[in-house]
């Protein structure tokens, strides 16, 4: 059991929806295991159910079959304990709250106030994501990249054991995206949290993840659990290395035959 309590385990998870045209299988029999503190990229074409998978892990969608165990607990338990952070594609900031008030939101709702576990302060987190000077700015005063930084800071305020990210940089320009990729790796190393990162960008998946879970679509299922042989300490220039290029070509070939 000790191995289970130290890992993220997704076991035979399926999700089916009832629609007008009958039952639609969004994801089918997905299984994988991930050690605590690891960074997993989940890569797949649109319609492969990668967002659905992430929402099952977050206890936002109940699985139709199968089990998810996060460090030995159910997703619902982990969510209630505030050990789970979620970053959406849209920063989903509340426009009437300043950057700092947005970061503090998780401590104000649910059991947040009681569960305050002496985690990082909102100011420290805004510092961590490089927004030290923007505490009192409203979302409409921030750029898209800055808003997403605020949303990352918000997800970290409860010091979560697991961080789920659903294409968080998908709507950003490439330069901002590169910079945030670098910073995310730094934050991951500094916080030691486990990250599941959904993306449809091969470059992003490969650059960020220690492992890359490749999904096939209709229905969403595991195509391959890829473990590229890349150094843990990496800069953006790693993307020009021979191994990275080779792996990217391999992933591209996989996606094309999905």
């Amino acid at each position, binding site marked *: 059991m000790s191995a289970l309590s130290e890992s993220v385990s997704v076991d035979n998870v399926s999700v089916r929806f009832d629609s007008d045209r009958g039952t639609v299988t969004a994801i089918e029999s997905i299984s994988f295991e991930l050690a605590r503190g690891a960074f997993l990229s989940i890569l797949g074409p649109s319609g492969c159910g990668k967002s659905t998978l992430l929402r099952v892990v977050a206890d936002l969608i109940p699985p139709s079959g199968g089990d998810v165990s996060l460090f030995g607990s159910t997703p619902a338990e982990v969510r209630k304990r505030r050990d*789970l952070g979620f970053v*959406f594609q849209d920063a989903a900031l*509340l426009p009437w709250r300043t950057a700092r008030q947005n970061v503090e939101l998780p401590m104000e*709702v649910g059991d947040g106030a009681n569960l305050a576990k002496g985690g990082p302060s909102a100011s420290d987190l805004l510092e961590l994501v490089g927004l030290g000077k923007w505490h009192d700015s409203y979302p409409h005063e921030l750029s898209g990249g800055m808003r997403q930084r605020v949303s990352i800071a918000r997800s970290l305020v409860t010091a979560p054991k697991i961080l789920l990210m659903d294409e968080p940089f998908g709507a950003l320009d490439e330069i901002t995206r590169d910079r945030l990729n670098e910073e995310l790796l730094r934050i991951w190393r500094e916080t030691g949290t486990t990250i599941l990162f959904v993306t449809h960008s091969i470059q992003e998946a490969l650059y960020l993840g220690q492992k890359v879970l490749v999904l096939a679509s209709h229905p969403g299922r595991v195509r391959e659990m890829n473990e590229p042989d890349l150094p843990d300490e990496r800069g953006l220039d790693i993307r020009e290395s021979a191994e990275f290029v080779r792996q990217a070509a391999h992933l591209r070939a996989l996606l094309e035959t999905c």
Partner: protein
Amino acid sequence: MSERLKQRLLPLTALLSILAIWAAVVHWFDIPEYIVPSPVHVARTLIRDFSVILRNLWPTALESFLGFFIGNLASIALATVFVHWKTVEQTFFPLAIIIRSIPIVAVAPILVLMLGNDMTPKVVIAALICFFPTLVNMVKGLSSVNPQALELMKVLSASKSEIFFKLRLYNSLPYLFAALKIAASASVIGAIVGEWIGSTEGIGALIIQATYNFDTGLLYAAITAACVFSVLFTVAISWLERRVVKWSPEIG
């Protein structure tokens, strides 16, 4: 000239031009005073009969305020119920839309018959006129929250009331104020329409009396007073909106 000053001066110029054209047309075409009075005559009446007009503006203002307050409060409450109990919304919202399409002016006599000749029917008419636009906007404002913000609240194990007070209510405020600005002037219309039917006081009653007496000066002066009040009411709501809604609403 600063942009701000320009924005103020241009409409003022337009207003003065219209008054000037009005005065000129009445003068050149020799239009009799009992058909259209000149603006100068209206202004003179306004000053001469100021106390009469003010005495009649008071009940109209009170009825509009009360109607505005009751009508909007009721629609905000009902919208809150709708958002939390989908079945209630599905049952009553289509009905509300049908009721809304009944012209209130046509129902006014019925309400006066039912509720008597005091202030009550006027307040009810004003409230009814405010009720539906605010209900529609409030339902939209409370329910059109960013779906990801809603998922975030679920990730945070927020209760229904926390989702309401921290997310839905704020989200609805820009929609609410858009409706309140319309409701402010609409409530004045409601009160005046209510006063048309057998009332002895109020701007509506004054309008009817002045019309029957061909006292066009008083008629136009009464309309001007109602207009000024209505504009001030709307401006007050806009002022409140700027104090309350400080964020930019287009970002969700």
